[in-house]
């Protein structure tokens, strides 16, 4: 009884690591650029496919591939920013949402055209091994993704709160005009932030590849959940993302374990939670 409980908790913790990593970039883009990037999930998908092809063609371990996956998406997002995003920054917020929706649908369907819709998986030696700690048994691969997530999130916080660049980013997030007045190059900060956010998505994609696999349609489920998480955390609240990920992953894991046939219902729990959080908040403040 207790064993199952602890095992569920461990699964939830690992899942929340992936959720937090996938959501942090989205929260960064919302918090700093004030745009809602609906293509975030497809950036994650691109990262997963970069890691997949590096693994298949060059035999590079997908965990190592998080570096090239992040780099590719960092560069690609720069192009996307210059060509499209920067033109809608001052337009009504729905324009940016619809634009990124368009980018996402395009990337997803291009991936279907180029790679086919079939899911892909990678095989590594450590995917079959597990670590046992008392009653809890955790696969090495999921554990590694948790370590990567925690390291990267800690790194992101360190950059944001301990470096000059982080200070500039936070200044721009707080007040675009004010930051411009004190001499910050707002456009460059936006470009950089969007690049970091997109790279985080791609790295999360490589992590998902290790644990589950890659498919052109994988992004959508993640972006929906990432939205749920950042909205629950309060838009732009980076620390909130951590606990929201934990709450939602835990709710999901427990429904999956304890509700009979709960695999499908777990998805609904996620959206029910976000739905009621939003509604409750709107009625409380009204």
């Amino acid at each position, binding site marked *: 009884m207790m064993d199952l409980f602890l095992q569920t908790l461990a699964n939830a913790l690992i899942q929340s690591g992936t959720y937090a990593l996938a959501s942090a970039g989205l929260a960064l883009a919302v918090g700093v650029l004030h745009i809602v990037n609906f293509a975030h999930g497809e950036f994650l998908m691109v990262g997963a496919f970069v890691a997949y092809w590096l693994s298949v063609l060059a035999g590079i371990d997908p965990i190592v591939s998080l570096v090239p996956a992040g780099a590719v998406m960092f560069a690609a997002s720069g192009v996307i920013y210059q060509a499209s995003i920067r033109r809608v920054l001052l337009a009504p917020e*729905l324009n940016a949402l*619809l634009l990124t929706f368009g980018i996402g*649908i395009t*990337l997803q369907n291009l991936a279907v055209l180029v790679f086919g819709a079939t899911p892909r998986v990678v095989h590594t030696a450590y995917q079959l091994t597990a670590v046992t700690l008392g009653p809890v048994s955790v696969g090495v691969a999921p554990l590694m993704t948790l370590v990567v997530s925690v390291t990267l999130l800690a790194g992101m916080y360190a950059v944001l709160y301990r470096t000059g660049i982080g200070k500039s980013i936070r200044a721009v997030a707080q007040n675009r005009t004010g930051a411009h007045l004190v001499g910050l190059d707002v456009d460059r900060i936006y470009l950089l932030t969007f690049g970091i956010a997109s790279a985080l998505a791609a790295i999360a994609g490589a992590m998902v590849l290790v644990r589950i696999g890659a498919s052109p349609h994988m992004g*959508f489920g993640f972006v929906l959940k990432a939205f749920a998480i950042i909205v629950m955390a309060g838009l732009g609240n980076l620390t909130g993302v951590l606990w929201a990920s934990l709450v939602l992953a835990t709710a999901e894991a427990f429904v999956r374990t304890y509700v009979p046939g709960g695999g499908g219902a777990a998805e609904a729990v996620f959206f029910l939670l976000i739905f009621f959080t*939003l509604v409750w908040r709107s009625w409380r403040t009204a």
Partner: protein
Amino acid sequence: MRWAGPAALVVALLVPLVPAGGYQQYVVQVATFVLINAAVALAWDIQARTGQLSLAPAAFFGLGAYAYTMAALRGVPLPVAFLLGPLVAGAVSLGLGVVTLRLHGLYFAIATLAFAEVVKVIFKELPLDLTGGAVGLTAPPLLGGHQTGLYYLGLGVLLLVVAVSLAVRHSRLHYAFTAIRQGELTARVLGVRVVATKLLAFVLSAALTGLAGAYATSRLFFVIPEDTFGIGLSVTALATAIFGGVYTTAGPVLGAIILRSLEEGLRLVLREGYLAVYGVILMLVILYLPGGLVSLWNRRSRDAAGGD
């Protein structure tokens, strides 16, 4: 522009009579899909005029479709089952609207998206003999499945949506919707009953979407949770309206004619991935033509009239 509406109607009435040889059936089928897309996109647009971006069309479309199918399978006369579609969708939207219409912008969009996903899962997880689970149900066809008859029924559905859209456009509601979209606070100060008006737009749009869902099912003969409640439906609705021109009656219809024909054409060439064209069009329109296709027309007629 005055002749465009009646001319389009005449063309629509003549579609099944076009001598297309062996392609006759195919032409009518594509035209039927255009009607469905146009009805859903225009219904979405009516609601969007209040400034609320809903991502729930798929939920109301699916509720209409399932209401029709489940009632028809239980021996309810088909015309009654057909009318249950818009009634159920409208009733559910009333409840959803009451709790969510206090939300704004992105929060509202996400809440409606979450709602649509929850409804989809519920229909997938309900007992098999009730909703057919993930496999869905086979729906009894209306009019004995007569293709031409069903085409004209679809045209009737679209004309009803067009009539509602025009009625809204040419009544005081138009000013109320526009005022709310441009600033709720100002609208309230001007004496617009903001919550009631937004709710009216939401329920009207949902009922019409439910009607389109019931109709589509009577034409397609099946419901499947992943397709009938699919997010793709909501995306198509808003992309179609934006491409054609939001806040207009002609825009979503024009958008549906072009996009759906294009989609069917591409589907013949590419078996999958053809939806990329929706993405590219959405991007280009937002960047270069925020008013949609209709704005091109309006710009030209304004120039001809010496500008205003």
